[in-house]
């Protein structure tokens, strides 16, 4: 389909569903059913099998018409990670049941992957799922679960066979967060607030119809999810978007705070941020030509470093003002609905940026990924790959 054809479809749809008079949810459901939600998805699941590159145009047309959106910021895990995994590994019934309310935002998703003993070493998860009749019973503890307190469903990785080596005894599930065995507790972080949660799972029941992929195939399915996480990190951006935009604005607004040392550091980082933007543009052009690869890991390394240096610099530029923390809420424990790395005060930005080199793969793990998968250097010495999971020293 041509982009003109797609524009005509959107126009037709808008003619039949006036955004000003149609109920928000009704509008979103109808948009999904018309295949105009995520156009790269298949027919019948909110899309039309079109190139992903056409999506921004569709979103632009809907936004211009004043149509409600699906508040993507509140369901990042669902849209960015759960949905593509369900699409790849789900049964027809699972896709029919879960994708539509996920896209409309009626059902928010979270991710139950990391555990206190399984961070970078994700395959080490010890949350157990044991077969019980036509379902499973799950016990364990998960951590760093953003949005768990708002989520209706979770993607979950649990150990189903401890006698297998660690990568082979895992299974992937879709977990109902309203199950009485699910206990969500806020995890307060260095910014003072609690963007994440700890999730305790006690005898949580999951029907076998909510297993995603085969039993023992959980690692493979989880990797599909994580690849989507890394891909979703690099998006096309304008000059001075993100942290550099914030710091450049601070610089321009405060001529009285300038020193030549800060000036030089700012210009270095401005150039680096610009080079990062070009690197992203070049990588996306490569991907569009069908030259995919693990190079996105290098992008995330650079992103984290630049964001941390910039946010640190901004605090120094502000000087005395940088010493005052979050005038409107202080250090009080709040639960933010969305996360904005570049929002709020300089102190918050500085502290939150510390997470950039930890979440979604630590910079150390990403360097291993680049070294091994891009540069072909030898893997780390591992004692835990072939041993049955239960025999790994811990």
């Amino acid at each position, binding site marked *: 389909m041509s982009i003109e054809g797609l524009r005509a479809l959107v126009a037709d749809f808008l003619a039949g569903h006036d955004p000003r008079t149609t109920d928000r949810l009704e509008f979103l459901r109808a948009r999904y059913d018309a295949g105009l939600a995520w156009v790269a998805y298949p027919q019948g699941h909110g899309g039309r099998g079109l190139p992903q590159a056409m999506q921004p145009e569709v979103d632009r047309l809907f936004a211009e018409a004043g149509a409600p959106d699906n508040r993507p910021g509140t369901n990042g895990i669902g849209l960015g990670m759960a949905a593509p995994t369900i699409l790849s590994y789900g049964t027809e019934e699972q896709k029919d049941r879960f994708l539509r309310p996920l896209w409309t935002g009626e059902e928010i998703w979270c991710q139950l992957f990391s555990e206190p003993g399984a961070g970078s070493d994700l395959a080490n998860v010890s949350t157990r799922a044991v077969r019980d009749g036509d379902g499973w019973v799950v016990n364990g503890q998960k951590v760093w679960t953003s949005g768990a307190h708002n989520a209706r469903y979770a993607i979950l990785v649990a150990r189903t066979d401890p006698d297998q080596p660690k990568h082979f005894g895992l299974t992937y599930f879709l977990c109902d967060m309203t199950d009485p065995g699910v206990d969500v507790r806020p995890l307060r972080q260095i910014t003072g607030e609690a963007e994440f949660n700890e999730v305790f799972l006690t005898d949580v029941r999951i029907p076998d119809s909510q297993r995603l992929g085969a039993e023992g195939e959980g690692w493979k399915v989880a990797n599909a999810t994580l690849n989507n996480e890394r891909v979703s990190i690099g998006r096309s951006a304008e000059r001075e978007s993100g942290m550099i935009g914030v710091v450049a604005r601070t610089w321009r607004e405060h*001529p009285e705070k300038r020193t030549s040392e800060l000036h030089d550091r700012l210009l*270095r980082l401005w150039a680096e941020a610009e*080079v990062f933007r070009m690197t992203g543009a070049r990588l996306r*052009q490569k991907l569009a030509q069908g030259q995919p690869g693990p190079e996105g890991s290098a992008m995330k390394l*650079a992103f984290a470093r630049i964001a941390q240096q910039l946010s640190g610099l901004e605090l120094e530029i502000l000087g005395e003002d940088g010493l005052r923390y979050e005038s409107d809420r202080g250090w009080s424990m709040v639960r933010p609905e969305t996360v904005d790395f570049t929002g709020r005060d300089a102190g918050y930005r500085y502290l939150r940026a510390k997470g950039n080199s930890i979440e979604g793969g630590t910079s150390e793990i990403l*360097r291993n990924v680049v070294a091994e998968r891009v*540069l*072909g*250097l*030898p893997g780390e010495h591992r004692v835990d790959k072939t041993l049955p999971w239960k025999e790994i020293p811990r």
Partner: protein
Amino acid sequence: MSDLDLLPTEIEEDLRGSVRDLLGDRCDPAAVIAMYDGDRSLVAPLWKALAADLGLAGLLVAEEHGGHGATAREAAVVLEELGRHAAPVPFLTSAVIATSVLESDSVTPAGRELLAALASGERTAALVVPWSTGPGSPVVGRAGTVTSVAGALDADVLLVPVTTTSGLEIRAVAAERATVTPVVSLDMTRQLADVTVPVGEGEVVVADAEGAVRDALELGAALLASEQVGAARWCLDTTLAYVKVRRQFGRVVGGFQAIKHRLADLYTGVESATAAARYAAVAHAVADPDAPVSTAVAQAFCSDLAVLAAEEAVQLHGGIGMTWEHPAHVYLKRAKADQVALGTPGRHRARLATLVDLPGVGG
């Protein structure tokens, strides 16, 4: 801005292949190292093959003046390969900077004739300014000696800026009419010379040349980034190959995380530098208004990155990286000299401050 196509076309890749093949045959690393012992016999035949046989001397010259009418995109690809081989040829100084000076609107008929001679590879030129002069630095034509000029040793015609009462003009002076004194240079693969031209010598080839000189240095700086990327890539590739075979403690040293992580960071840097250099070339190819910013960014980034790549190559090769025999030092010297060439990274950042409205103290 970022809509510009940052990937080489098939034609550009073909060009790269031809240059790489020729350099593989004719630019022996041992002969490059020998230049540090005073043996420059590699240069003339190699430049003739590249300039005349492959037609690179006229790559950027318009077809109506006997060139190929290619753009900065193609020149960037050539420079990546020249950088990769640390090739000691005057492509950047003659085929990019000198020809660019003569592409000016205020070129005289004599200048146009010279341009055609440069395009065919029949003659080779050099702009007589210190090699550290960046775009935006003032160029004053004065009597006496101009020090540290790049490309002068390989040139048979010198483009000399002369300040007159009505501004700056460029005079073409036959090399044999000037005194060209070789300088023992940090980078002997682009050996510098001190140039003295008798007052009143030569023929005016560009009148009102201030803009022409600035544009030529701007283009030179933008494309130098591609040469730096080529050198950095050689350093990365060569170091990678080495750490995959060098064994200590019973295993290849490339398996140690201390080394893997440094190389992962270097790879990230080289990929970033490639994008920056490519963007600078592409912006110049289409005369994008963002071209000056692209140059400043590329030079601010690629200059330092190429030095880092060469320093990492020396370090990660261990003892062998410190020897005369291994070519790593050739790249270190080239990268360090390139960092100063056509404006230091600090000068490019200062220029950036003006271009993108990030004024300094009191601004």
